[in-house]
C-alpha cells in the first residue's frame, strides 16, 4: 500500500500561495469526514485550495449516512449525504485519507501547522480491493455491528455499510489472540476454532498445516499452552482447544487416510539433510519440501517419529496417529532413512547436501549417582518407555514400581506401568519436594493418582538395595524445604535419621534428559552439551549447518520442537535461495488485551465448557487406549462457540482464499507520515450518551428498550431486520413509546444541555413508524417540543395531525411486565396530572449527546480551549463563528455542539470561509 500524500491532484485553477514560507503539503487539513468535514472540504476545494480530509473510520459520511430519513422533509439520508460523499471523493482538489488518524498537530511560528498522522493497518491493499465483498461473505467471525448500533452482528472482514466511500474491505484485528500468541508455533487456534464453528473441518485442518504439520500428534499429546492463556478461562473456564483440534484431526484423518497433495510442482535442485525424525526434524522437512527442496531425514531408530514414537505412551498418542502425521511430510517427497545413525557431519557434507539440519533431540538420560544404580531393575524413563512403545512389555504383575522424579516425564512411565500391570501393580512416584512443587501438569498428577499411582513426596532415594545383582528395595530419606535455590524453588534438605527401606521390583529414573549430541564435536556445543545456534535463525557457526529442537533448547514440549523446525526451515530456505537471514520470522501482533475483550464481552452469553468424556477408570487402568474420548461434531462445534474471538480476526485465512485480486495482507503495518498544512479544521463530531447510564429506563436490561440511533437503523433503507420489529421476539410493535431528553437537560448525568435535535428526530421516527406500521400507536413523552428550524414547527403540527400522541411528562422508570411488554411510570403534567403507568411494547430512548473530546488530544501545541459543556469553544460565536482559541485552527459543525444538518452545513461554510481568509492572511500574495 502506498500513501499518496506527496502529490495531490490539483486542478488548474489552484491559487498560487506564497512559497517563501514552509512549503505546504496541503493548504488545509480537515479532521473528520462527516457532514461538516465533507462540506468544508468541498467548499475549500471549490475555492481552489488543496485539501486533505482525514477520517478515522473506513468510510466517509459520518453518522448522517446511517440515518433513515432526515427531518423535516423526510428525504432519505442517502439522498442528502451521498451527493456530498461523491462530490468530495471525486473532487480534484480533495485528497481523502480514510481509516487514518491524526496523532498530533502543532502550530508553527509562520502560522502553518505540523501534523503527524497515520493510516491504520486494514490488512487489505485498498488500491487492489474491488469492494466485491467476498471476504465478508466467507469470514467466520462475527462481532456486533457498530454501524447498526449493535442491533445485529457483522463479520470481522467487512465493508462498513452498503454506501461506503471508498467501498473497500477492512479486517478488524485487535491483536493476536492469546492462544495464538502463546503457542510457540503460533498455531492459529482461534482460526481453526472459528472454522470448526463454521463446519469447515477440512479448511481447519489445512490452516493448521501452515504452522505445524503433526496435527494428529498435537491433538493428542500437546500440553496445550494455548489453553492456559484462554480468555474464556477468566469466565466459565478455558476453551478445550486441544479437544476441538482432536475432533478436527480425527475427522480429517478418517476422511483422508492419505494426504490430498503430492510433491510440489516447482522442485528445486537443492538437497538438505536432516538428522533426526522427531517433531523438529519432521516439521523442518515439511516446510522445506513445500518450498521444493530435496529433503532426506536420517533416523537412527528403526522407525521415524523420535520421541513421538519412542517416548509418549500410546494411551496419550497412538502410534497410528504418528504414522499418519508422518505421511503429511513424506507425501511431499521427503525421504526418511531409518536405522541410519549419522556420526560424521563432514561425511554428510561430502554426500553433496547443501545444508544440514541437526534435530537429534534430547533423549539421553541423567544418571543418579547413588549406590546400586547399576542393579538389574533400575532403569531410565526413556529406556522404560522405549521398551513399552517399541520393544517388549515388561511383566509387572503384582510388582512394585517406583518412579523417581516429579515432572511430566515421571507421569508417563508411572501411568504406563499401571496399564501394563493392569491394575495389579503398585506404582509409587517418589519426589523430593511437595505436591505443589511438582513440575508436572496438575491434570497429569491428578490423572495418575486417580489411576492408583501413590505419591511419595518430600522423599529421595539414598541407595538401591539388590540381591544377586537384582533390585529388591530402595532406601529413601525424608526431606524438608530449605532456602530457595537459584531456580527460585525451595531447596529440599534431607532430614538426618529419617531413612527407611521400601521393597521394590523396579526403579525408573525420571530426573532429567540430556541433549543427544554425543556424536558432534565439542566446539559445536556449550557446557550443557546443547548445540550452539543463533536464537533467531538457528544457524550454527558453520553457516551451512542449522540446529533445531531439544538439542538446542534442552528438553521441552513437542510444540516447541515443531516451532523450531519451522523456524529452521524458514531460514534454511532463505539461505539456499541466497536471501538475507536478517528478516523477522512470523509476523505476530501484540497480544490482544484480555481486559478489553472482557469489557466488550457484555454480548457474550454464558457458555459452560463441554465436559470431556473419558474412559472409565477401570478401563483406563487396563488399556493403552486413549482415555480422552474424542468430541462429537456437535460437542466440538458447541465448544468452538465458546471462543471469544479475542483478536477479532481469527486468521482463518478463508478471506485470503476467495480474494481474487489477492489484496489481503496480514503483515500490513500502520503507515505514519508527517506533513505541513496551512490551516486545520476540526470536524470531529459528537459522541452518543450511553443510554444505559439512565439505569431506571432499563436499556441493556430489556431488549425492547432501544436507543434513538437504533430506531433510526430500524427505519433505514438498509435496515437490519427489513422492518420495524421488536428485538426481543421479532414481533411488529403495536404501541411505541418515544422518550425525549434521555440524558439531556439532565443534571443527574452531568449533561444540562438540550440535545437540540432529539425532538425533531423523534418526531421523524414517529412519523416513519406510523408509515411502516399503520396499526401502531406512537406516543412521545416530552418536556418541551423544540421544533425551531425552517419548517420544523409545521412538522410538529403535522405529527399531531397524524395522530401521534404527545405526553408532557418525564418518565421515571420502566419495568418489564410478565407478558414481555414494558410499563412506563411517568408524571402526567397536563390534565389530571399525577403519577401514571402506561404499557408499551417498544420503547425508544431519545438519548443525549456528548462532546467528542478527540479534538483536544489531537492538538499538541498548547491547549485547545473547551467550553463549559466540553465541546470545542468558539471564542466569539457572534462575530467569528468556527474560530477557536488557536489562531488558524477552526472547528466546524457538531464539534462545537450538536446541531442539525442544515445548521451543520452553514457552520461548515463558516469554517471554510474562516480557513480561507486565514490562508490568504498567512500565505496570500
Amino acid at each position, binding site marked *: 500500500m502506498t500513501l499518496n500524500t506527496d502529490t495531490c491532484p490539483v486542478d488548474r*485553477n489552484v*491559487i498560487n500561495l506564497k512559497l517563501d514560507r514552509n512549503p505546504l503539503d496541503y493548504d488545509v487539513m480537515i479532521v473528520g469526514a462527516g457532514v461538516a468535514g465533507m462540506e468544508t472540504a468541498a*467548499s475549500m476545494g471549490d*475555492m*481552489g485550495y488543496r485539501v486533505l480530509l482525514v477520517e478515522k473510520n473506513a468510510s466517509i459520511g459520518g453518522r448522517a449516512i446511517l440515518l433513515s430519513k*432526515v427531518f423535516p422533509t423526510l428525504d*432519505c439520508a*442517502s*439522498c442528502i449525504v*451521498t*451527493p*456530498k460523499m*461523491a*462530490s468530495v471523493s*471525486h473532487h480534484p482538489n480533495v485528497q481523502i485519507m480514510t481509516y487514518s488518524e491524526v496523532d498530533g498537530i502543532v502550530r508553527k511560528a509562520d502560522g502553518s501547522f505540523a501534523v503527524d498522522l497515520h493510516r491504520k493497518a486494514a490488512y487489505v491493499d485498498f488500491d487492489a480491493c474491488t469492494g466485491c465483498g467476498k471476504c465478508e461473505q466467507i469470514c467466520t467471525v462475527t462481532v456486533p455491528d457498530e454501524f447498526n448500533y449493535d442491533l445485529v452482528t457483522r463479520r470481522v472482514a467487512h465493508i462498513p455499510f*452498503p454506501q461506503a*466511500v*471508498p*467501498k473497500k474491505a477492512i479486517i478488524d484485528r485487535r491483536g493476536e489472540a492469546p492462544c495464538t500468541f502463546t503457542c510457540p508455533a503460533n498455531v492459529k487456534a482461534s482460526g481453526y476454532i472459528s472454522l470448526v464453528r463454521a463446519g469447515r473441518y477440512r479448511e481447519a485442518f489445512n490452516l493448521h498445516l501452515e504452522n505445524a504439520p503433526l496435527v494428529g500428534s498435537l491433538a493428542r499429546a500437546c500440553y496445550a499452552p494455548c489453553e492456559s492463556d484462554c480468555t474464556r478461562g477468566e469466565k466459565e473456564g478455558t476453551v478445550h482447544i486441544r479437544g476441538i483440534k482432536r475432533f478436527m484431526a480425527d475427522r480429517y484423518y478418517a476422511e483422508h487416510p492419505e494426504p490430498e497433495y503430492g510433491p510440489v510442482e516447482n522442485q528445486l535442485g537443492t538437497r538438505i539433510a536432516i538428522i533426526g525424525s522427531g517433531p523438529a526434524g519432521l516439521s523442518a522437512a515439511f516446510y522445506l519440501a513445500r518450498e521444493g527442496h530435496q529433503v532426506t531425514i536420517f533416523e537412527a531408530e528403526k522407525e521415524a517419529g523420535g520421541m513421538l514414537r519412542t517416548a509418549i505412551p500410546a494411551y496419550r498418542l497412538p502410534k497410528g496417529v504418528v504414522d499418519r502425521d508422518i505421511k503429511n511430510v513424506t507425501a511431499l517427497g521427503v525421504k526418511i532413512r531409518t536405522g541410519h545413525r549419522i556420526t560424521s557431519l563432514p561425511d554428510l557434507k561430502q554426500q553433496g547436501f547443501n545444508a544440514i539440519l541437526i534435530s537429534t533431540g534430547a533423549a539421553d538420560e541423567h544418571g543418579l549417582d547413588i549406590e546400586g544404580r547399576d542393579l538389574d531393575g533400575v532403569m531410565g524413563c526413556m529406556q522404560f518407555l522405549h521398551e513399552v512403545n517399541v520393544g517388549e512389555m515388561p511383566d509387572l504383575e503384582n510388582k512394585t514400581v517406583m518412579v523417581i522424579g516429579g515432572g511430566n516425564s515421571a507421569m508417563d512411565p508411572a501411568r504406563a506401568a499401571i496399564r501394563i500391570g493392569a491394575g495389579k501393580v503398585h506404582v509409587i512416584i517418589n519426589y523430593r519436594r511437595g505436591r505443589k512443587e511438582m513440575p508436572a501438569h496438575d491434570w497429569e498428577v491428578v490423572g495418575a493418582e486417580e489411576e492408583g499411582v501413590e505419591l511419595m513426596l518430600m522423599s529421595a532415594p539414598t541407595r538401591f538395595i539388590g540381591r544377586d545383582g537384582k533390585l529388591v528395595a530402595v532406601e529413601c530419606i525424608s526431606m524438608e524445604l530449605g532456602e530457595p535455590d537459584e531456580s527460585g524453588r525451595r531447596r529440599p534438605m534431607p532430614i538426618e535419621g529419617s531413612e527407611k527401606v521400601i521393597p521394590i521390583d523396579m526403579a525408573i529414573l525420571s530426573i532429567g534428559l540430556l541433549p543427544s549430541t554425543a556424536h558432534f564435536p565439542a566446539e559445536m556445543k556449550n557446557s550443557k552439551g546443547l548445540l550452539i545456534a543463533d536464537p533467531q535463525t538457528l544457524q550454527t557457526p558453520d553457516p551451512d549447518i542449522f540446529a533445531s529442537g531439544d538439542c538446542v533448547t534442552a528438553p521441552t514440549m513437542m510444540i516447541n520442537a515443531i516451532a523450531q523446525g519451522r523456524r529452521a526451515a524458514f531460514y534454511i530456505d532463505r539461505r539456499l535461495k541466497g536471501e538475507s537471514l536478517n528478516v523477522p520470522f512470523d509476523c505476530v501482533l501484540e497480544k490482544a488485551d484480555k481486559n478489553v475483550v472482557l469489557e466488550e464481552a457484555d454480548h457474550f452469553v454464558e457458555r459452560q465448557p463441554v465436559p470431556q468424556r473419558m474412559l472409565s477408570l477401570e478401563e483406563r487402568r487396563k488399556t493403552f487406549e486413549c482415555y480422552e474420548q474424542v468430541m462429537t461434531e456437535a460437542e466440538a462445534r458447541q465448544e468452538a462457540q465458546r471462543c471469544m474471538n479475542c483478536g477479532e480476526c481469527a486468521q482463518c485465512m478463508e478471506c485470503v482464499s476467495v480474494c481474487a485480486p489477492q489484496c489481503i495482507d496480514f503483515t500490513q503495518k500502520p503507515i505514519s507520515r508527517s506533513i505541513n498544512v496551512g490551516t486545520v479544521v476540526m470536524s470531529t463530531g459528537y459522541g452518543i450518551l450511553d443510554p444505559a447510564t439512565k439505569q431506571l429506563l432499563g436499556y441493556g436490561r430489556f431488549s425492547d428498550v432501544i436507543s434513538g440511533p437504533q430506531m433510526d437503523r430500524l427505519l433505514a*433503507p*438498509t435496515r437490519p431486520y427489513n422492518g420495524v420489529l421488536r428485538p426481543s421476539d421479532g414481533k411488529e410493535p403495536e404501541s411505541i413509546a418515544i422518550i425525549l431528553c434521555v440524558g439531556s437537560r439532565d443534571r443527574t448525568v452531568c449533561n*444540562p*444541555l*438540550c440535545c*437540540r435535535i432529539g425532538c425533531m428526530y423523534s418526531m421523524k421516527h414517529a412519523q416513519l413508524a406510523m408509515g411502516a406500521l399503520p396499526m401502531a400507536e406512537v406516543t412521545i413523552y416530552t418536556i*418541551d*417540543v*423544540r*421544533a*425551531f*428550524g*425552517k*419548517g420544523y*414547527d*409545521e412538522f410538529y*403540527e403535522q405529527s399531531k395531525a397524524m395522530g401521534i400522541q404527545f405526553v408532557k411528562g418525564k418518565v421515571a422508570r420502566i419495568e418489564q411486565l410478565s407478558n414481555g411488554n414494558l410499563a412506563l411510570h411517568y408524571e402526567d*403534567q397536563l*390534565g389530571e*396530572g399525577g403519577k401514571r403507568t402506561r404499557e408499551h411494547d417498544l420503547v425508544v430512548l431519545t438519548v443525549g449527546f456528548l462532546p467528542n473530546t478527540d479534538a483536544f488530544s489531537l492538538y499538541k501545541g498548547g491547549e485547545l480551549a473547551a*467550553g*463549559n459543556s466540553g465541546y470545542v469553544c468558539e471564542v466569539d460565536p*457572534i*462575530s467569528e*463563528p*468556527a474560530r477557536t482559541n488557536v489562531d488558524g485552527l477552526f472547528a466546524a459543525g457538531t464539534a462545537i*455542539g450538536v446541531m442539525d444538518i442544515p*445548521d451543520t*452545513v*452553514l*457552520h461548515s*461554510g*463558516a469554517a*471554510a*470561509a*474562516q480557513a*480561507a*481568509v486565514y490562508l*490568504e*492572511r498567512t500565505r496570500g*500574495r
Partner: protein
Amino acid sequence: MAHKRRIGVYICHCGGNISDHVNVKEVAEALLDEPGVEISRTHMFNCSDASQQEMVDEIKEENLDGLVIASCSPKLHLFTFRAMAERAGLNPYQYVHVNLREQCSWAHTGDKVGATEKGINLTRAGVAKCALTHPLTAIRIETQPRVLVVGAGVAGMRAAISLAGMGLSVFIVERGNEPGGWASQAGRMGPDDRYGPEVVANLLAQIRNHENIILYTSAELTAKSGHIGDFTATVRLRGEEDVSLNVGAIVVTTGFTPYEPEDGEYGWGKPGVVTLKDFRQMLEAGDGPLTYNGIPVRDVGFIYCVGSRQTKGDTCPEPNTYCSRFCCMATAFSASLLHEFEKESGQTINQYHLYRDVRTYGHLEAVYTNARADGALFLRWDPKEPPRVEQSNGRLAIKVKDTLLGDEELELGVDLVVLATGMTARKNDTLNNVLKIPESKDGFYNEIHIKLRPVETAIDGVFIAGTAQGPKNLAESVASALAAVVKTGGLLKKGYVNLEPLIAEIDTDKCVWCNECLKACPYGAIERVLCGDKEVAMVIDSSCKGEGACVPVCPQDAIDIEGFRDNQIMAMIDASLKELVAA
C-alpha cells in the same frame, strides 16, 4: 439516424424508496428490448460510489454513447451523474434522467403493477430522448472578482469582511442611513451578553480599514442585468444618483421585519403593552427605577410566541406558522437582565413568563436555567386558549390557564405586558422585482435545498444569508453569511463559470424576425442580427436560461431548446405510449 446508439439504462432501487413500489427488475428487463439499449440493470443506490464506478467501467468497456439513469428527482443527482458521465468519457449531455421516485413510486404506493408499468413507460421515454441527444459543450463565462452585498446588518457586514479577506472587492448597499441593522438597536444580547452597538462598531471599523470594501448607505439596488459571474447592478444613492457596479455575484442579507401585532392582539394598543425590544430599551435606558407612565413597575408579564407558530383562523387569515427561533432565548435572557436590574436598583419586580414550549435549544438551555434561577416564573399556556390581556384597576391583568396547574385560570396583575414578537419576512418590492429570488410560503427567501445548497437560490450567482431566508439568532446569521461567502468564493476565485448549454437555438433559414421571441423572453436574451441580407433573431448564449418561453410563440416554428427539442419530445411521447399504439 447515422448509426445505432449504444445506450446504458440503470434503474435505482433507492434503497426501497423505488423498489418497494416498482418492480425495478421488471423495468430493467423490459428496457432491454428498446432500440439502442445495450445494458439495462438495477442498483441498490445508483448514486453510491461503488455503483458509479461500475457504471463508469461499463460505459467505457461497452463503449456506450448514451446513458439513462432512472432514479430520484434530477434536482438531487443531476450533477452527480453528469460528473460520472464525464469520468467515463461520455458527454454529460448524452445522459438523460428519469424520475422514477417522485413521479412514479412515491405517487403510486400500493399499486405495484401499475407503478411498474408506468416506470417502464417513463424509462422508455427517457431512452427515446437519449437516442436523440448529441454532445454539447458548456458555455464558459469569465467571472468578475467583485461582490455586491445587499444589506449592511451584522450578517452583511461580516460577509463583506471575509469576502474582502479572500481577495475579492466588495460593495455593500444599505437602504438605511446607518449600517448595523437590528443589532445596533439590540443592546445586550444573549446568550453571551454581547453589546449590540459594540459588535456593530467593531465590524464597521474593520470595514472602514479595508480598502476593498465600499459601503453605500441610503442606497438601493434598483436594477440588475447580466448573468452569473458578470452582473451589472444599478444602485441609486440617496434617491437621486445612480451608480453602476460590475460584480460577479450578489449576496443578499436584507434581514427581517419584527412582527407587528394586530390591534388588540394580547392587548396590543393598550397602555403598558410593549414589545420585547421596547421593554429592553426601557430597562437599559438607565436612570432610576423602572417606571411606566411614571408609575414604578412591580410586575411584568412576558408573552411568548407572539406572531409565531400561528394557526389559521378568523382573526389570522395568513398565519405565521413557523417558530421564530430566537425569541425564547431573547426573552429568557431578558429575565436575567431584569433580575440584575432588580439587584442593582433595589426595586422588586415580579416576572411571569407565559410560554408554549421553551425552545432554548442546545447551549441556550443555560439561558433558560439562569432565568428560572433569577426568579422568572414560567407558566405554560395552550394555543387553544391563549392568554388575554385586560385593563383592570388602572393596571393590566393577564388571564391565563396554566396547563401545568390543571388548567387553573390565573389572573396576573401586571404593570407591563411584554410581547415576544417573532420575525417576519421583510417586504421590499423594489428589491424583489430586481432580484426575483423565489420566496417560501412564509415570504422569506428560499434556498435551493436547505441541506444541499442552503445559501444558493434559483437565480445563479445570487446568494442569500442571515434572517432574509428565515429566523435565526445572530450567531446563526453570521455562520450562514460566511457560508454564502464560501460559495461566492468558490464561484469567483476560479475566474470562470460554466453555464448550461441547454438553451434556445434559432433556425435562421426559417426565422423572418417578427420580434415575437424577444417580446416573450423574460431575460432579454434575443437580439436582432443580419444574416447575409436577412434580419434574424440571435440568442445571447450567456443570458438565455433555456426556459423555452420563445418556442411556442414563434410563428415560423424556428426555435428549439437544446435538450428539449421537438423531435425529442415527440419521440418520448411515442415511446411512452408504445404499447397503447401497438394495441
